[in-house]
């Protein structure tokens, strides 16, 4: 593909910040994924995501952020929905001063027929048995309609 313009995704109606933070003892420290948040409680089309790792990431080289086509208001950290529609890794090692950022865009949009839920895990694939350590909070910004 020849060099071209910088891709731009038009602004959308909703831009939401999720703070996925392991709250330590409340969710079992490092043994479970970060807090599982419902983003959209109904059909939604996802256009862009920005993931920031603001912690020191001392025990995690990478974290995988997983997006599920589900809505479940009872979801909590430790639940294991097995089949995400989208998985994106982010490198988190380093110091707090070196915030790691991954961002991506989906120009045509990715439709979630049920809704969007997000979970962060220290493991790739579908596995959710381990979470990032306490020092690795994530901020996840999503643009969707």
């Amino acid at each position, binding site marked *: 593909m020849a060099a071209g313009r*910088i891709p731009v995704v038009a602004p959308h109606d909703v831009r939401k910040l999720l703070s996925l933070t392991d709250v330590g003892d409340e969710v079992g420290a490092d043994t479970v994924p970060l807090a599982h948040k419902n983003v959209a409680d109904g059909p939604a089309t996802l256009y862009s995501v920005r993931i920031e790792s603001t912690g020191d990431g001392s025990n995690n080289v990478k974290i995988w952020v*997983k997006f599920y086509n589900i809505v479940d208001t009872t979801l909590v950290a430790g639940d294991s929905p097995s089949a995400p*529609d989208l998985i*994106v*890794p982010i490198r988190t090692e380093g110091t707090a001063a070196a915030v790691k950022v*991954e*961002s991506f865009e989906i120009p045509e949009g990715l439709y979630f027929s049920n809704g969007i839920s997000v979970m962060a895990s220290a493991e*790739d*694939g*579908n596995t959710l048995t381990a979470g990032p350590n306490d020092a690795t909070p994530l901020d996840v910004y999503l643009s969707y309609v």
Partner: protein
Amino acid sequence: MPATPRAGAIAGATASKKVVIPDSNGNPRDAITGASVAVVLYAVEIDCTANTGEDVFTRFYDANSAAVGTDDAELLCKGIAGKVETYLFEKGIPFATSISVATVTNAGGTGGATSPSGTVKVTFEYA
């Protein structure tokens, strides 16, 4: 990939690869290099215009080859039946070993190895 990029190019990408998953192929995987070469992935296009029967899921493995249905994917992107879906990774996603890719109809990044019912073209840019 169309001659005119649908969504523009990402700075840093120096090469592209197209993987065509033919109709109901029993072995839905392919690799960029077949050798250990670290790469950074910048863009993915999943063309399902000839696959209208079902959505698909393209799994990217950080490996020279992959056991589809068993190995864990590093990156998972969804393709929509009858449409073209594009993913643009501004910072790039590093693969330390290489990239192997599989496109299946099974959601998720691990289990399932069912090939699409129609032809799916997956193109990705990397450096």
